[in-house]
Every structure is written in structure tokens, then in C-alpha cells.
């Protein structure tokens, strides 16, 4: 039965929650991989997402301004991804590698410093003002609307959200292939489980670390571009605001478990949007002022109750 209750719930709470969840999920994959393979919480991850979106914007601006043709953000994201991965590798070489054998705190502090450096650099280069990514508002996909309306299951999903769903699924399949079928993917999982053992069996740990940055960078990039596509603009704090929910997603799913991170991301995204649903009475269940707190609360409860996460990841 498709009454107005279900219609509102699906279109205005559930689907937006999934969109947000997809973005969190892609970001959380990078965090969980860095956490398990390099063994530190990378605070600069959100900034990488943001930089990726800015670079994509720049590629789009160059294409339409200098070369004279407009490109879709997902196309522009490809050259931008290379730059982001390069940024990741350079920061690793100069700012994280010196601490490989040192206390965790040192490298976490270093990533905190990187967060500030990257964000300030973006603010100096592109300026603190908002940039328009795609102007206008996104109307629901007309074909889907007609078709779903005809079977009495009206769905209002704009194209940008369809891109995000399809993109996330494609990314997940590629990642799954990489981790399960390729040599480097298996090596990554081995290092994640036990770096010493992996080293003894002759796995090139440095190569694995590079691969981690590349995979994490590509995922961060996708998350950043999807986020920019969704909110249709760019601002310099957009990455940082996603950081803690992404940590929450990684912890919820279990550190070192990419699928867990995806599930965690979806749960956090849905929980944030559904917290404002009028479950009881007419008002929102939780004042939207507390919306940001939902992810933190889930994260803290999870750390206390089940620190290994839903998927039995590593717990330190």
C-alpha cells in the first residue's frame, strides 16, 4: 500500500538518507583502509575530499571557459583524481612516512596539521567564497516519476541522486574485485590483518601503503565529487564537516572492513535524516539542531558497547 505516509517517508527521508549515506560510505572506505593498514586516524581525509571537488570544479571551469565545451562532473573528476592521488602520495612521503616507526600520536598530529595546511591552501588559492558547482535546482527524473507513478509507487529522484547511487555501486564492485581478486588487494588485506606476518611472507609493505593511498584517494575523490554534485556548490569546510560522521561510519562498520564502512556510512546517513522524522506526534523526533550529534552519539555508543564494530573489525 502506497499511502501518503509511505510516500513522504521514502521520498523525503529515506532516499535523502541513502544519498548522504553513499557519500559517507565512500569517504569511510578511505578512512578505514588508512586506519587498518597505516594504523592511524587520518584527520586530513575530509580535506582531501574537498580538494578533489575543487579540482574537479577547476577542470570543469577550464573546459567550459578556455576550451569552450561543458563536461559532466564525473568526466572532469577523472583528471582531478590523478591530482588528488598525487597529493596523497606526496603528503605521505613528506609528512607521514617519517613517523612510520614512531608513536601513533605523532602521525595523527601530523595529519591534523595537514588538515589545516590543505584547507588554508585551498582558501588562499580559490578564496573562501562559495563556488557554484551546478546552478539551478534538480527536478525529479521525469521518466522515473511517470513510470513509478503508473504503478502507484511514486518516486521523486533527481538525476544527480541516480548518478550517486549508480556511482557508489560501481565503485563498490570495483573495490570488491580489487580486494578479492587482485594480488595487491590480497596483500592489502594481509597487511591490514597483521603487518608483521605480511612482511615476513615477503609482501612489499611500501607498495601496499602506496596502493592504500591510491584506493583511499580515489574513494575520497568520488565522495567529494558526489557531495559537490548533491549540494551543487563548493565551500572550504565541506570536507571537515563530513569527517566525524565518516569516522563514525568506519568505526560502526569495524576498522579495516571496507564493506563494514559502507554499511556504517549508510546507517549514519539514514540515522541523521530519519532523526528529524515525526515518529511521534507532528514535530520532529529530535530537534534538527541536534542532527549533527546523531552521528557522534552512534559513534560513542558503538565505541563503548562494541568497539570492534558490526563487522568484527580490528579493535585496539
Amino acid at each position, binding site marked *: 500500500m502506497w499511502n501518503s505516509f509511505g510516500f*513522504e517517508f521514502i*521520498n*523525503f*527521508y529515506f532516499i*535523502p*538518507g541513502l*544519498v*548522504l549515506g553513499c*557519500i559517507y560510505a565512500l569517504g569511510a572506505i578511505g578512512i578505514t583502509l588508512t586506519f587498518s593498514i597505516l594504523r592511524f586516524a587520518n584527520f586530513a581525509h575530509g580535506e582531501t575530499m574537498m580538494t578533489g571537488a575543487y579540482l574537479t570544479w577547476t577542470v570543469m571551469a577550464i573546459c567550459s571557459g578556455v576550451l569552450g565545451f561543458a563536461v559532466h562532473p564525473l568526466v572532469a573528476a577523472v583528471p582531478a583524481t590523478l591530482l588528488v592521488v598525487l597529493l596523497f602520495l606526496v603528503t605521505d612521503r613528506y609528512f607521514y612516512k617519517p613517523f612510520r616507526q614512531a608513536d601513533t600520536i605523532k602521525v595523527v598530529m601530523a595529519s591534523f596539521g595537514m588538515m589545516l595546511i590543505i584547507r588554508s591552501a585551498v*582558501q588562499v588559492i580559490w578564496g*573562501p*567564497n*562559495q563556488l*557554484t558547482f551546478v*546552478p*539551478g*535546482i*534538480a*527536478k*525529479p527524473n521525469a521518466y522515473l516519476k511517470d513510470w513509478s507513478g503508473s504503478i502507484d509507487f511514486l518516486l*521523486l529522484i*533527481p538525476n544527480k541522486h541516480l548518478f550517486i547511487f549508480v556511482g557508489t555501486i560501481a565503485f563498490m564492485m570495483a573495490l570488491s574485485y580489487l580486494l578479492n581478486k587482485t594480488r595487491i588487494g590480497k596483500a592489502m588485506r594481509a597487511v591490514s590483518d597483521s603487518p608483521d606476518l605480511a612482511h615476513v611472507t615477503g609482501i612489499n609493505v611500501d607498495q601496499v601503503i602506496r596502493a592504500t593511498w591510491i584506493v583511499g584517494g580515489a574513494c575520497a575523490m568520488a565522495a567529494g565529487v558526489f*557531495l559537490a554534485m*548533491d*549540494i*551543487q*556548490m563548493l*565551500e572550504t*569546510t*565541506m570536507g571537515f*564537516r*563530513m569527517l566525524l560522521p565518516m569516522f563514525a561510519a568506519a568505526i560502526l562498520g569495524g576498522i579495516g572492513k571496507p564493506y563494514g564502512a559502507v554499511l556504517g556510512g549508510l546507517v549514519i546517513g539514514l540515522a*541523521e*535524516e*530519519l*532523526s*528529524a*522524522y*515525526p515518529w511521534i506526534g*507532528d*514535530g*520532529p523526533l529530535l*530537534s*534538527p*539542531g541536534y*542532527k*549533527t550529534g546523531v552521528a557522534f552519539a552512534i559513534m560513542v555508543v558503538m565505541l563503548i558497547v562494541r568497539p570492534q564494530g558490526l563487522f568484527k573489525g580490528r579493535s585496539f
Partner: protein
Amino acid sequence: MKRTIFTTAAAMLCSTAVMAEVSVGNPMALTGPIPDLVAPMAQAVDLAAANVNAQGGMFAGGESYKIIRADSACDPVAAVDAVTKLINVNSVSAILGPVCSGATIAQAESVSFPAGVTTLSVSASSPAISTMEDGTDLMFRTAASDAYQGVALANLALAQGITEIAVSYANDDYNAAIAAVFSAAFAAAGGTVTANEAHEPSKASYRSEVATLGATSDNLALFAYYGSGGITLMRNALETGAFDTFLGADGMLSDEVIAQIGAENMGNVTFTTSASDSTTPAFAAWAALAEGAGIPASDPFVPNSYDAAFMLALAIEKTGDDNRASVSAALRSISSAPGEVILPGEWAKAKAILAAGGDINYEGAAGNQDFDENGDVAGLFSQSSVVDGAWSATLIK
């Protein structure tokens, strides 16, 4: 090499102190949550200083009117630190206000009141500022208190035939304050506020908030900064089609909103702002100056910033000797009747009258700028809606 560095450093430290100039400290929220709102305001301040210097400068000697900018970051910590430096190290004559209300109050109570320095804020609109002084007369502002604008907006809503409305406000000092005034005034005048919810600024999605509010009413009163979540919320609301009519205050009034959302989607959107009658010569004078300098003339608080910078120059000129203690009284004198009316940019004329011992009365770009006993301006308000792809303002009578 060492000597070069040393002299450079010395020059940097001294350059602000020794030259023949009148300096005013200008803490602005250049970083922090609303840098995009502040950038044109800073340009307007610079434009006022340029106008003053181009028309003879300060005092008989033609000293330059220098704006020393600092970063208050919309943050009490940064504002207190910045103003401490401006007052003690740069020895400024007055403070040309921090942008956010919280930062303005903090710097005033912590630094500039104890030091006896006058603050003229450009955009702090919290009602708390009216009542914060205790026997001193050091706090002024060129932006009208939210207590006035919220009421004006509530009356506008009722005049448009809106009897019930949902309110969504960004949970920051400015928007929370004006939303509270609006809700109270709207309810008192016979309207119904169907829902009144805060939202966290700068989130990626407001769809669930919009849906929950949209279930209660077709009209939305939106209080947010366009630069920190306002545009996203409005876009989400338009995408879901939850609301027919949008009302709001000056935090949302920017060309950026039209550029991002598209004029074709903004048929039923009305935002208020404090403004002067655009038919007055004062506004025309300002609009011409702003256009010449490429500054958006009616963006939020931009005319207020110009007025503030220009009025401080007039007040210091009036003191005759760049004395901190007499700025406050002079500010009252140059801004109100009796006296020859001075419009934005008319520095040479004002300077001549003051030199002859005459009285002047500045009529500003954002209103007539007559301070009441609390240092507040009453201000007129205009309503803006989108006509032919641009904001079009009419005065609210």
C-alpha cells in the same frame, strides 16, 4: 642579508605608528563561518576610505585615513585578540566593528569599553547590544537591531495575506535572534507559527528538516546566511516542492542566491533588509559610488559598512585632534540634525563645513543613521523579490 631582514621587520612594526595618518581598527570576520558575506563589506569600507583620501584626507594637513584590518573570524577569542592589538599596538582612534554580534560584544566588554574606545559596528544586529552598556556611550551600530527587522518582516508576512508559517533558522547568534523576534511578533499580530525549528548551519542536506516543516505549512520563514547552509536549505525545499512562499531576512539577500538557485525558481521569494529609501538622493549617491567600484550595492550590510567607515571619518574630523575620548560625542553630532545634509561620498563638502565650524548631518546609504540613546539606528526596511533575474527592492511603508 641579516640587516635587510631586520630593517624589514622594523619597518613592518613601525609603519603603522609613525606616518601622519588617522587610523581606525577594522576587525572583520575574514575567516570563520561567513567569509563570503564579509568580502564585499570590507570592499565597501575600503571604498569609503578611498573617497575620504581622494577628497583631501583628514584635518587641515590632509593626513590619510587608514583602515587597519584585522581578522575577528566571527569568534570572540579572535576578536578580543585582534582588538587588543589594534588598540594597544596600532593605537587606533576607534573600532569599526567586528561583523558578528558575539564577537562585537566580547571585544567591547573585554577590551574596548575598558580602554574607553568607541565601537561602531557595521552589522551586529543582536538585540542584546542595545542594553549592554552601563553608563558609558561607546557602542554604536549602523545596522538596525533585529528587534526592528523581525517585526517588519512579521508585518510584511501578514500584509501578504500569510496567516500561518513555518520557521526554520540557522542556529547561530544572528539568525536565532531574528527568528525569535519574528515568531513572537507574528504570533502577537494574529498569525500562527506552525513549527519553529533550529537547523545546524552548513549541513550537506536539509531534506528531512524541510519535509517535517513542510508538512505543517506551505509558507516558510527562512533565517540563515546564504553562505552557510541557506542556499542548500532553499534548494532542498524547492526540489521537494514543500513550500510555495519563502520569506527571510538580509542574511539570504545576495546575488549569489539567484546565481546558484536560478531566478526562474524564485517566483515567490521575499527577503527584507535594512535600507534607505532608494528614491532618496543618499541611496542614489551610494549606488553610483558602489557601481563605480564594482561593489554589490544592496548585498547584506554592505551599505551599512560604507556608512560606518564614512561616519567614523567624519566624527574624527569633527574632534579636530584625533582624540579617542571625543569620538563618541562627535559621532552623535555628525549623524543627526541640525546641520547641512551630507550624502555618501561628499567628503570635501563635509570637511569644508566642519572646518568653518558648521554642523553636518550625514544621511547614509543604509538609512538616515540617527543614533538613539543606545547607539542604535531605527532604519527603514525594504522588501526584495526577484524581477527579471535580479533583486528588486521596494521600501516597506
